[in-house]
């Protein structure tokens, strides 16, 4: 067996059991767009039989979403993701990045840049223009993505529906229960540092707020730590390991040793933070990585506490970087099941990639849209049709949200923690005494 960066590919015996799990194979029916085909190409790259300048090889490897849906179905445990990392690093060193990828990744390298870009985007979003302009074309799809990042407006509507139905939230929990809980709790609750990230911090600040509130209700103390950077996942996936490492080191510096846990509510970021030990290679980075949790994991560990009923149909869609990279399956479901009256569905293909894949949907919009199509069709065919699709990753929220808008389906997308938050709000958990 080889011991180099491609060693994780060694166990592949070419059985082909991964083919039906690959989103790009399913839409192209082409072996080169399958994990097995790409492994053949990566091995050729490793052995020097093919060059990183080979246009066809680059096309096939670039077209991989990196969803790692092939890993959990592989009987031999091939480390496809590790192999892909190695291949993309080698390709980057041989041919560099495309101008578009370089400029996108450059933005995420510097806080001042991404902050300005997302602040502008937020301003645009506030005008409601993106929502009005959203549609199927490439520009209008982009507008749909931005519109989908907004906090769900239906919060109010569903709360009203729930109140109208006469089920009283306070039956299940009130602030008095909460106060009683808190007195029973040991003196020092576990501390949690919120990983802010880039997209999450500016376009999804409402998800951060929901994360803070729900964690506190479940007995965590949430800390806001300064000097955090973008996680570096976009750079890592593009093969720009140097940038990824620099960003990761800055985050290790900002977060290490300051809290019991680091909580992440973006599956893509969480997957890389959990891998910081491998990426940075210092003892601090490994310790930090071991303390990283998805928000659903922390909440599920505490039950979580049930809130007020939400009388809605919800379809859960599993982000690839939560289910395949972090191997977190049950926690988000436990979190949603803690909401009384909520009807949870798992649509066919809810474990299949939506095509977002970081900046993939920007760099390869056609393939990304093809991959998305079957997911939208599944939502459309669902009975009963869900009011909402929930998924714990910003890229997936925007991609699926834009897809639903383009298909003119009256279904919105949100982060699962937003629903728990709404349920808590309706239960009165956030009302301050003496208000």
């Amino acid at each position: 067996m080889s011991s180099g960066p491609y060693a994780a590919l060694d166990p592949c015996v070419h059985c082909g059991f991964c083919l039906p799990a690959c989103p790009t194979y399913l839409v192209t029916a082409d072996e080169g767009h399958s994990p097995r085909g790409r492994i053949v190409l990566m091995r050729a790259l490793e052995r020097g039989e093919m060059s990183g300048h080979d246009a066809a090889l680059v096309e096939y490897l670039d077209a991989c979403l990196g969803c790692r849906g092939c890993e959990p179905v592989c009987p031999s445990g091939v480390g496809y993701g590790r192999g892909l990392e190695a291949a993309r690093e080698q390709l980057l060193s041989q041919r560099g990045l495309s101008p578009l990828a370089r400029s996108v990744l450059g933005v995420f390298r510097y806080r001042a840049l991404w902050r300005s870009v997302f602040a502008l985007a937020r301003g645009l979003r506030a005008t409601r223009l993106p929502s009005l302009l959203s549609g199927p074309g490439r520009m209008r799809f982009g507008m749909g993505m931005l519109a989908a990042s907004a906090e769900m407006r239906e919060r109010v509507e569903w709360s009203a529906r729930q109140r109208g139905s006469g089920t009283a939230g306070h039956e299940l929990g009130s602030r008095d229960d909460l106060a009683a809980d808190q007195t029973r709790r040991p003196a020092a609750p576990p501390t949690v540092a919120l990983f802010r990230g880039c997209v999450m911090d500016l376009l999804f600040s409402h998800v951060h707020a929901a994360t803070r509130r729900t964690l506190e209700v479940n007995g965590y103390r949430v800390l806001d730590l300064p000097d955090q950077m973008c996680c570096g996942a976009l750079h890592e996936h593009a093969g720009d390991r140097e940038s990824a490492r620099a960003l990761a080191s800055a985050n290790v510096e900002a977060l290490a040793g300051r809290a019991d846990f680091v909580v992440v509510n973006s599956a893509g970021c969480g997957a890389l933070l959990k891998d910081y030990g491998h990426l940075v290679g210092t003892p601090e980075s490994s310790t930090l990585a071991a303390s990283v949790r998805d928000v659903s994991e922390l909440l599920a560990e505490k039950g979580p506490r049930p809130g007020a009923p939400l009388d809605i149909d919800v379809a859960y869609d599993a982000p690839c970087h939560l289910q395949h990279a972090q191997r977190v399956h049950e926690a988000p479901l436990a979190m949603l099941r803690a909401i009384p009256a909520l009807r949870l569905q798992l649509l066919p293909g809810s474990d299949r990639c939506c095509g977002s894949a970081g900046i993939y949907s920007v760099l390869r919009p056609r393939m990304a849209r093809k991959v998305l199509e079957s997911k939208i069709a599944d939502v459309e065919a669902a009975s009963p049709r869900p009011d909402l699709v929930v998924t714990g990753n910003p890229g997936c929220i925007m991609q699926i949200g834009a897809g639903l808008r383009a298909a003119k389906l009256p279904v919105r997308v949100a982060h699962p923690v937003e629903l728990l938050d709404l349920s808590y709000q309706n239960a009165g958990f956030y009302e301050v005494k003496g208000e």
Partner: protein
Amino acid sequence: MNSSLLAALSRIVGRQWVRHRRAELVTYAMDGLPTHESLPGVVVIPGSPEQVREIIRLLHVVRVPFVARGAGTGLSGGALADPDAVLIALTRLNRILRVDPLQRRAVVQPGVVNARLSEAVLPFGLHYVPDPSSQAACTVGGNVAENAGGPHCLKYGVTTNHIVALEVALPDGSSIRLGSLHGEPWGPDLVGLFVGSEGMFGIATEITVRLERIPQSVRTMLADFSTVRAASEAVSSIIAAGIVPAALEMMDRACVAAVEASIYAAGYPTDAAAVLLVELDGQSDAVEAETALVRDILTERGARAVRTASTPADRARLWQGRKKAFGAMGRIAPDLAVQDAVVPRSALPAIMDQIDGIRLEYGLTISNVFHAGDGNLHPNISFDRRDSAVIARVRSACRDIMAACVAVGGSITGEHGVGNDKLDYMPWIFDAETLGAMRAVRRAFDPTELANPGKVVPVHACREWTAVKSTRTPTLRSGHS
């Protein structure tokens, strides 16, 4: 491949479905048996049966050979094309065209994945029975070409017993319909001839399959033994008692170890020399009675423990371990030579001893996972091809195993087909006359031998059989049995 052919193919299927760059071709250079490798001249991925026929018509005119390919999970090198040939990938023809639950028939395109078909008819309480271990990925078209088997073929028969009609693109691009939706057609059984012909007679563009009701009751038992011989004898005893299990599968210690290390770990005991999976199905009462009987036989034959799966989830877990066993072999070594041979069931204990002897003689790792009920062996030899010395030993061990199987009255393939992997063994079981007859049948379908050339019937030895060929009326006679 010359550029005018590429242009002509592009006109038929569209440029984006013609693959000719090296990186594109290398992904199609192997099937599920990577000990064989061959770069095709060009890969073309048609989107309709009409396009398949047009491609074949074109190739017939310009006399360029072609090879059909499904998901590339075959295990005999049957879907490999030489640099002078066109590989026709049928993966885009993946539509289930009709399901008739009353008549229990489905009409599918060749690229439909085997397991998808069963999923699609599940709401009607039906399934498509042949279940090769690769069923999650392999295609019905490939199953037809190879006459694929699977664990449940012991009781229900192999692919050929489940195909009732075919639409075939012949090697000159014309189209014919074989068989009929209901009952037997007149004349010779051409469907039976086509199923298992390994791509020599053309390409099936539409396949009508028989569906079966999902049995009322199913019991799956797991028994473990301290010797392979005892497990083999238990197999014979079950059949001798007049019981036909739905499936009767064996795995040895090395195989169990690989499965249990994988995510498909099924809870097989890792200290056993062999485990047997026995499945019984049918009406509840009968299944209950047979389960008790089989349990007694297994215990009598020395099973250390017999476990019965009580829930569908337990059953699924036991089967996942078995079905993914071959894919789990990468945990032992990066390369794998999968063999496929058949022996009379009574010879199982002796042949297992011989395979173990061959393993020791060549110092190799051999794990066995196989359809014990019908004597269909799959010895898996794990190796690392970067060790150049080992490859010769693997080849010799494969030959020796095959020779041992043939010597006890067996055959060189149970379900993987001959392809190019077993060409050399064909003269071991068929005499020159019989091989000549096979070639004549091939030529009846394909006078210019453009369809999957060089496979199945060893061409290089055919010079000796010219006399037979020229008569054009050969008598089919088995060379061995």
